């Protein structure tokens, strides 16, 4: 177990370093002078450019620049946005909770619907409920989340006028209002997550139910719910944990577009606005933080994985 943790930690740190190098180099790949990219001002005089280069250390060798940049980030200095003039940390700290809340709500909805649906479909394989579950999951998988969001707005905000079409209220200032703004976006994302989890859960469960150890469990005289929910479930959750790791990027992309559809001022919204305003420092900061978040979540999933499947504790995740 200790070896496993150290190995996974090493892999995560390595991935994080490579990702940060990519993010660092990305902004240097923006056409034109990096000073212009960093300040967003295209009409700088050569003297001004030189001054900024000095300020940002752009005239130093790349590895030194990278080290400086890393040091700044690790001490919490993400720079400021050339568009709004605000420190990026300030902007992120107001956007972050929104995105985190939305993501967590969506995951909860997805898990609460997807996992039981997958189990039921597998246990009732070939029955009407299995076909119905599969058909619904296929719909959930095929429907564009932003369009689904627009449809919900059309129905619940425009036609029925029961929910707000867009905007955000913080949970602390008004929990009820917060949830009424969050329910549609969370549902839109949650159904997508549910569809993926349901399909994965079903196939993982079918595989587990065919395994010899399930036959052993039945031969012991265990009641069917124990056979399914203890012996088969534990092993099929392994594949589900893997899929969650693989789908994080898709989920977070979905979160961003959903924020855009519902006018939620989260990280996704911040980033998308940044692209059109050529606010490169903000994009850089978000890219780095997102990559770090995904890597950390995957590291956490490695533990879930090790818990579910004792074998990997010894042999390593691959």
């Amino acid at each position, binding site marked *: 177990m200790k070896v496993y943790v150290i190995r996974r930690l090493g892999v995560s740190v390595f991935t994080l370093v490579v*990702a940060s190098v990519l993010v660092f180099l990305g902004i240097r790949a923006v056409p034109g002078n990096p000073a212009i990219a960093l300040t967003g001002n295209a009409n700088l005089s050569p003297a001004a450019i030189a001054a900024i280069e000095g300020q940002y250390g752009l005239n130093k060798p790349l590895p030194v620049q990278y080290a400086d940049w890393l040091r700044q980030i690790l001490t919490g200095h993400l720079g400021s946005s050339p568009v709004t003039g605000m420190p990026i940390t300030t902007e992120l700290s107001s956007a972050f909770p929104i995105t985190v809340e939305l993501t967590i709500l969506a995951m909860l909805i997805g898990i609460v619907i997807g996992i039981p649906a997958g189990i039921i479909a597998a246990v009732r394989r070939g029955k009407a409920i299995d076909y119905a579950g599969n058909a619904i999951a296929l*719909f959930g*998988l095929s429907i*564009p989340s932003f369009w689904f969001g627009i449809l919900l707005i059309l129905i619940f905000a425009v036609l029925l006028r029961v929910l707000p079409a867009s905007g955000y209220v913080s949970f602390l200032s008004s929990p009820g209002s917060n949830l009424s703004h969050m329910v549609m976006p969370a549902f839109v994302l949650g159904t997508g997550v549910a569809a993926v989890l349901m399909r994965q859960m079903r196939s993982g469960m079918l595989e587990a139910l065919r395994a010899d150890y399930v036959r052993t469990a039945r031969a012991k005289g265990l009641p069917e719910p124990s056979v399914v929910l203890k012996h088969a479930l534990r092993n099929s959750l392994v594949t589900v944990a893997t899929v969650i790791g693989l789908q994080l*990027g898709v989920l977070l*992309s979905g979160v961003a577009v959903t924020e855009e559809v519902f006018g939620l001022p989260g990280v*996704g919204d911040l980033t998308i606005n940044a*692209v059109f305003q050529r606010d490169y420092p903000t994009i850089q900061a978000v890219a780095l933080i997102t990559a770090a978040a995904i*890597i950390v979540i995957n590291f956490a999933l490695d533990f879930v994985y090790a818990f579910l499947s004792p074998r990997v504790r010894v042999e390593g995740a691959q």
Partner: protein
Amino acid sequence: MSLTIAPDPAAMLEAAGQSGRHWLRRLVERPPAVIGLAGVIVVVVVAVFAPLLAPYSPVASSFQAVLARPFTAGHLLGTDELGRDVLSRMIYGAQPTLEVGVLATGLALVVGVPIGLVSGYYRGAADMLAMRITDVVLAFPFLLVAIGLAAIFGPSLRNVVLALGIASLPGFVRIARAEAMALREQDFVQAAIVTGVRDRVILFRHLLPNMAGPILVQATLTIPGAILGSALLSYLGLGVQPPTASWGNMLATAQEYLFNDPWLAVFPGVAIFLATLCFNLLGDGLRDLFDPAMR
């Protein structure tokens, strides 16, 4: 009376050959897969023959008929805010959607399969490298990659293909790697290794053809994801730029007119949904063929 001998290798080979020959026929026996296949064919035909099928030019505006309702003024699906024929834009909009779906998947396949093949066959350092590459790719959501590319090169269809292609890479690496690892242990590959057949021949003659099925399934199931991704990116304005029509950018404009002209938001969404659904149905059908246990 029927009496068949159980594990007769010749008979098994013949059965395998037969299943190979008739897989298309077996696919056609599944109604959902047939619907999927038919839908995919329709999308392809519409995209390819758009100029012949579209009643109007997709970019010609007519200020006499702005935001005409469906079934009026000679416009089956009405017109948009610039008086452009929605049906024609829908037909042309199939092009970038399909293009991105196919090209991004193709890119991921062409790059991912060899990586997975080599890493699964050689293991060791090659495997390590491949796994670290996929780790890094997985750390960046495709939207972020697309944003980065748009920031560097400006928004374009090529960026969308690249972003979605990169994001789809790990799936192909994993499949090819798992298949290569499994096939490597099989007798015919071991025999080839022992008799000194060159690695290149083993990889491309022995391993690659034998993983064609799972890779085809992966490809068919990657296309719908790429279609959704491309619609998402073009909804955000990172894909095909107006006035060129794509289902995604049509939806983006439609949202502004949601209160008075909601139908504008209905048609492109339905089109994206149905195209994605059909590819998923076809992909599921193919997967069931190659892995009946999962049905």
